[in-house]
């Protein structure tokens, strides 16, 4: 055949082969690279680094443990083991014989056991045969039955045999064991001594990146069972909304935050704090005996951390509050709550940049986002950096490729606002246990009345009164001259006022922000608005006439103000000493407890209003307006007159002399027209305005301005009833998308207190700067006058602003399963409703409630004259008494030596019931019981009387019955004794509470004057009775004589009783019960305010009604 003509190739094979070679090499290289990139995840490095830290930690522990080791004891044990081995070797023949015997018996036993089990299996099979033969009516039924019986006997025999062989085998084993026992004992003891070291060594094996661990984590092999892996906790009660369904959160934070629930990796600072706290607990014996050793070990560990060369850095730090969070014994264990339920963040992310970390300030942001761009060398070289440990350097610099992610719907709370995370579960509570910050933040929002303008649809912030006073009677109280200056700038009058500044703020008049021409115009407009608001308020005000009181004495008035309790809610000074400089300066709200900011600062009140009004107001605040939060202190006419005289001396005449610009009619016209042309044409508006005199224009503009600024949200104002609050609803503000916040063009500014504030591009920072400087986002914006931001300036300090921000950003849409919400059971709801009343009526100004409060204490030097501590009130007070007392405190005067008065709050029955129920629920007592009618036996009373004398209770407590007339008038002795009259106890106190109180007064109310007669016995936990031994002393002979008959003349029984604190206090109770009075005056209807002094005739003509009907809308 002719050889085929070679067909030429289109390509040179040689070059194709070369291309093939090199492309294959390149493919291999990129495959390796791919595996490398897949292998090198950020979190792996954190885990590896943590293993190294653990290894170091264990090695140092090991060193310490080895040093502690008892060397001589170990050596002795070693010799003993060797001795025994020698011993066995010497009697080898006997030992071998015994061992052989055991071996043969083991064989026997095995055989017998097998025979038995096989026979039993056969028997079961035979039972089946026998039964089926009967059911199928087979001929061999009888034979099968017989066979079954035979086998049964056989099995029984085999079982007996097995038991016998087992017994013999055990006996042989015991003989061998006797030989081995000696050796084993010594070895066990050695193991015990070495246990700690062994454990540490075992732990060391697991954290060393060598051998098996290395293989398990090797690239490509690590799919089997790596030790580096993503850790996660599924939180079934916290949901993510992924549209149309809710999925549980899955937290993977602990993939990098390895030590979050392991104590021992605290930062140095935290370690110092924790060590100090724990030491303090140890010193005050708050830790039970069996846990003390652990606590000491922990302190040692914390000391080691403080002395270590390097500080532990995040993400390897331990959670600083393991007792409250994350710890397995804490109320929020890691496995149930994870991390994102409080902190928020992207639960499933395992990269720093994508986990939703939010920087707390610019410095941190810059450090975090030292970004390697997509094409940068840093990114390309990542595997190299990983292998050479250059990543460690990156970690030191903390440049972690963080980037802002505006689509993340739940970014973490930055460091300043961690407590915001409490709200989603704890919003049904007034105070959060161990959450001082969040509790205070909520109280701040309540006190400053944020909820009034911004609806917050959340139990905590609903159903609260309007924070500002009623303005419907403003003309009776003050003058337009004062009101104009006040509205212009309330802080000029009182530096601590909660009334914010609406006018002449940054976006209107600040020369750095507003151009000069616009500024002049703005000032004119603002003047017009101020004047018009005042004009409206005075035009709409009632004009009742308040009758002046008798002449008063200012000196006595001052005394009264300082002593009867005014200072619980009010402050009477504006000058405080600066803690740093020592110089006097203007006070800020933060200088006083929140409770004392509840009422206004009394300075300047004489300039603000006049004698007749003050006199009537303090006599009966509810007469001025029904919702007045100020209670009545039941002042006599003379007292009221004295106080009035004193308050009138608090003058600020310079305030009324500050110049006020005249209102510019053109500005009024322009502004009014601006509103009118919303509904009218320009021409009609002009005509309408021409028909109105200036005053009418002012009233019209005032109405519109009040609407614009939302004054009615905080104050009751005629004509604005039922309007919706002015501000943005904040119910889910924390979940609002970032792009919905208008950041304007401002990046930083200097706050009023001189601090340089920066605005970060995240929601918390926006809110913080908004409340700190409400008009800041108008900077360099081009806006028309009415479009400018209107939120008033509260002049918040940094701390106040942080508190408010915490609440606002904490109001999220985050979904929590209802069983995780705090305080949801009906019992807790009753308590929380009561707590809400307590907060609303500022009870903590005078009383300690739930362990917090008594702001008045700072003004009363002698602690004996403080109003009572109500912490145990629930268990203490009878509900019937409490109800009457709350409705009308005059029904009983318990502590006549106090000059502070329990005010009459004019509670409604519902409110009083809420409070009574709260106390009863908190004290876990039934609201009502039959104990008041109990008649203790005369014998008990007699014993009680003797004990009462022996313990010398009468030194302080008076037992003379109070005047049976109602109300009971205290005896003279009562006012000096500083202890309640005991005849009141039966009406007031709970039956079971009295003995409890006598036994442990100091536990219930720390620092009480009531002495502890029955100290705790540290050993048994019971009480020690001082009478147990005293009864036998000669000094107590007469009591013994009197008591013996009550115990059937049995000194043993007597002695036994005298040593029994519980019995003794019960007798005391019975005695006290027997002397108690049983009648109490019922409270009046109380809730309704006493009728006001009605005007005889209006002194001023009422405002012309013609103004608005036509103009309104």
């Amino acid at each position, binding site marked *: 055949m002719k050889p085929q003509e070679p067909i030429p190739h289109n390509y040179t094979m040689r070059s194709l082969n070369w291309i093939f070679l090199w492309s294959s090499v390149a493919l291999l290289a990129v495959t390796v690279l791919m595996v490398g990139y897949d292998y090198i995840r950020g979190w792996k490095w954190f885990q590896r680094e943590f293993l190294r830290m653990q290894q170091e930690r264990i090695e140092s522990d090991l060193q310490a443990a080895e040093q502690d080791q008892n060397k001589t004891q170990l050596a002795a044990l070693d010799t003993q083991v060797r001795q025994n081995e020698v011993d066995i070797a010497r009697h080898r023949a006997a030992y071998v014989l015994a061992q052989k015997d055991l071996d043969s018996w083991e064989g026997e036993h095995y055989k017998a056991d097998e025979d038995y089990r096989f026979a039993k299996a056969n028997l079961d099979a035979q039972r089946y045969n026998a039964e089926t033969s009967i059911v199928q009516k087979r001929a061999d039924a009888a034979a099968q039955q017989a066979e079954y019986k035979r086998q049964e006997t056989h099995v029984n025999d085999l079982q007996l045999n097995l038991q016998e062989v087992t017994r013999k085998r055990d006996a042989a084993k015991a003989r061998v064991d006797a030989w081995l026992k000696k050796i084993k004992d010594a070895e066990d003891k050695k193991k015990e001594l070495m246990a700690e070291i062994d454990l540490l060594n075992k732990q060391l094996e697991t954290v060393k990146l060598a051998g098996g661990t290395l293989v398990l984590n090797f690239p490509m092999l690590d799919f089997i069972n790596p030790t580096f892996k993503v850790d996660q906790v599924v939180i079934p009660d916290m949901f993510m909304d992924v549209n149309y369904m809710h999925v549980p959160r899955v937290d993977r934070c602990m993939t990098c935050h390895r030590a979050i629930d392991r104590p021992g990796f605290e930062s140095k600072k935290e370690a110092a704090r924790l060590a100090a706290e724990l030491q303090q607990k140890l010193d005050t014996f708050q830790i039970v005996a069996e846990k003390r050793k652990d606590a000491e070990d922990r302190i040692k560990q914390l000391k080691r951390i403080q002395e270590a060369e390097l500080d532990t850095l995040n993400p390897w730090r331990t959670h600083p509050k393991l007792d409250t969070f994350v710890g397995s014994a804490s109320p929020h264990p890691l496995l149930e709550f994870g991390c994102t339920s409080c902190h928020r963040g992207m639960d499933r992310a395992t990269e720093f940049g994508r986990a939703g970390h939010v920087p707390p300030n610019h410095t941190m942001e810059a450090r975090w986002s030292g970004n390697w761009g997509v094409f940068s060398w840093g990114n*390309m070289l990542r595997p190299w950096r990983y292998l050479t440990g250059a990543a460690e350097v990156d970690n030191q610099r903390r440049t972690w490729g963080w980037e802002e992610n505006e689509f993340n*719907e739940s970014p973490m709370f930055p460091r300043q606002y961690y407590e915001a995370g409490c709200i989603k579960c704890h919003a049904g509570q007034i105070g959060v246990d161990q959450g001082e910050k969040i509790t205070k933040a909520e109280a701040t929002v309540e006190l400053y009345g944020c909820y009034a303008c911004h609806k917050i649809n959340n139990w905590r912030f609903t159903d609260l009164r309007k924070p500002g006073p009623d303005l419907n009677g403003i003309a009776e109280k003050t003058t337009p001259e004062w009101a104009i200056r006040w509205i212009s700038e309330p802080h000029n009058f009182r530096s601590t006022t909660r009334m914010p500044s609406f006018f002449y703020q940054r976006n209107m008049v600040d020369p750095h922000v507003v151009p000069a021409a616009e500024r002049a115009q703005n000032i004119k407009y603002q003047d017009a608005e101020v004047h018009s608001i005042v004009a409206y308020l005075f035009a709409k005000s009632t004009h009742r006439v308040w009758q002046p009181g008798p002449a008063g004495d200012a000196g006595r008035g001052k005394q009264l103000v300082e002593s009867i309790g005014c200072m619980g809610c009010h402050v009477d000074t504006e000058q405080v000493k600066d803690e740093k400089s020592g110089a006097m300066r203007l006070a800020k709200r933060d200088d006083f407890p929140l409770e004392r900011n509840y009422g206004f600062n009394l300075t300047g009140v004489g300039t603000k209003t006049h004698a007749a009004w003050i006199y009537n107001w303090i006599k009966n605040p509810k007469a001025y307006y029904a919702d007045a939060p100020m209670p009545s202190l039941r002042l006599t006419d003379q007292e009221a007159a004295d106080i009035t005289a004193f308050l009138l001396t608090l003058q600020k005449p310079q305030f009324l002399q500050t110049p006020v610009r005249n209102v510019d009619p053109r500005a009024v016209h322009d502004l009014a027209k601006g509103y009118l042309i919303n509904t009218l044409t320009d021409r009609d508006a002009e005509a309408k305005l021409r028909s109105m005199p200036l005053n009418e224009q002012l009233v019209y503009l005032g109405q519109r301005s009040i609407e614009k600024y939302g004054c009615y949200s905080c104050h009751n104002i005629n004509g604005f009833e039922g309007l919706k609050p002015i501000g943005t609803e904040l119910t889910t503000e924390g979940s609002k998308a970032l792009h919905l916040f208008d950041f304007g063009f401002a990046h930083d500014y200097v706050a009023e207190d001189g601090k340089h504030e920066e605005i970060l591009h995240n929601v918390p920072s926006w809110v913080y700067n908004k409340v700190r400087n409400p008009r800041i986002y108008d900077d360099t914006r081009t806006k028309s006058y009415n479009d400018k931001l209107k939120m008033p300036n509260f002049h918040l300090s940094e701390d106040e602003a942080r508190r408010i921000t915490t609440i606002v950003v904490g109001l999220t849409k985050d979904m929590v399963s209802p069983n995780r919400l705090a305080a949801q059971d009906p019992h807790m709801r009753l308590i929380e409703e009561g707590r809400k009343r307590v907060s609303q009526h500022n009870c903590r100004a005078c009383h300690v409630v739930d362990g917090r409060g008594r702001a008045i204490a700072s003004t009363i030097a002698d602690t004996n004259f403080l109003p009572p501590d109500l912490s145990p009130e629930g268990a203490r007070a009878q509900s019937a008494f409490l109800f009457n007392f709350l409705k009308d405190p005059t029904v009983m005067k318990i502590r006549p030596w106090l000059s502070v008065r329990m005010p009459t709050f004019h509670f409604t029955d519902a409110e009083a019931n809420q409070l009574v129920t709260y106390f009863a629920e908190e004290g876990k007592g039934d609201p009502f019981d039959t104990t008041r009618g109990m008649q203790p036996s005369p014998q008990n009373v007699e014993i009680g009387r003797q004990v009462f004398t022996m313990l010398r209770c009468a030194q302080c407590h008076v037992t003379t019955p109070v005047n049976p007339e109602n109300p009971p008038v205290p005896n003279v002795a009562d006012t000096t004794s500083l202890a309640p009259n005991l005849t009141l106890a039966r009406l007031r106190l709970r039956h079971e509470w009295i003995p409890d109180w006598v036994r442990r007064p100091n536990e219930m109310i720390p620092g009480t004057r009531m002495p502890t007669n029955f100290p705790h016995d540290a050993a048994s936990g019971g009480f020690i009775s001082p009478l147990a031994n005293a009864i036998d002393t000669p000094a107590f002979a007469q009591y013994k004589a009197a008591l013996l008959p009550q115990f059937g003349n049995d000194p043993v029984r007597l002695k036994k009783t005298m040593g029994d604190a519980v019995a003794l206090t019960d007798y005391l109770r019975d005695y006290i019960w027997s002397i108690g009075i049983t009648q109490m005056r019922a409270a009046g209807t109380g809730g309704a305010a006493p009728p006001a002094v009605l005007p005889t005739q209006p002194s001023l003509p009422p405002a012309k009604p013609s103004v608005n009907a036509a103009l309104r809308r």
Partner: protein
Amino acid sequence: MTFIKDFINVLSASSISFLLLSFVFAFIVFFNLLDGKLKSKGGYAFIGLGVVIVLAGLVIRPLLYLGVAYFLIMFGLATLGGRLWDSRVGLRLLIGGAAAFFLSMLDPNFYLIAAKPDNVPIGAMIFLLGIFTWIALRKAYLNDKQIAIGGIPWEKTESDEKLFTWPDLVYTEMLCMILLTIVMVLWSIVLRAPLEEAANPTSSPNPAKAPWYFLGLQEMLVYFDPWLAGVVLPTLIIVGLMAIPYIDTNPRGNGYYSFRERKWEIGIFLYGFVVLWSFLIITGTFLRGPNWNFFGPYEYWDPNKLVPLVNVDLSEIIWVRTLHMPLPKLWFIREIFGIGLVLAYVSLPPVMARGPFRRFYLKMGAPRFYVGSMLFLIMMALPIKMVLRWLFNLKYIVHIQEIFFNI
């Protein structure tokens, strides 16, 4: 530098549709160039058209940009002439384009958009598209030259030869496979997968963009109602593509590259694919920012940027602005001009068949000609509407809100 960037921004922001239009002219000029007809009668007509546009630009400002673009392209092509297909010129064009692109990366705003992992492949697509179009046209040019001097196309010279499946086909295929795998792996390593947070219907990203291959459709929605831009036009695109083999029965140019033999076929296809489809994708990717506003290539994508919406209907332009009359109440009368215009537009084919396109009509036969020219007219409706929108703020030509029918 800033000035140049600003100029490019302004140019791109206001003259994108003029560029489209100048491409139309450019293509027509292009045919003439290849035939060496620039100095012919037709050539003078196109230069005259350019002069008219520039003069009009003195009145309608944006038209000035159009004039500039028109002349740039026309004289660019005229200067290069046949040399455009010289491989050295092609290389220079490629290097110049790449240099401009990567130098632009120094601009932070440009970098932000162009270096986004989703956009990188589209950036690459620009170059690939250019390179392959150029190669195809170069081959066509060379073949045309051969044919002109009586030779045969290059492809024909080798079509009689035989090759082994192995190694000539399979080996090279395998090499391509390996090299592409390398590219894909490197790509996946270097560029992060553009995954975002779980979608939330109440908080959509701004701008909300379709996948890149649908950005042309999304861009069309700016100019037409959804029933047109979303239903009719896409359907016609598919139908039109399917109809091509039946309409284009030109037997010449089969199996080899040639432009001269298929001027109109290639011209129309390139216009529809490169200028309309690809260009709209590029526009949608790089030039459409937040709120679907237009942003120049170096402009910061400010989500707060506001563009006034002052578009008017044809009926308003005619009745109110020109005739100074109120709008007639009856929609039929009100829209009579628009309807007339649309009807006139769709009844162009018979006119075309008689007039300048008579030779096509004769060559193709009536059915093919009418179907083809209808499809062509509908395709051209898009740039026409775009230009009208950009020049005259024209919203709708026919706007019958009474029956929800808008064009």
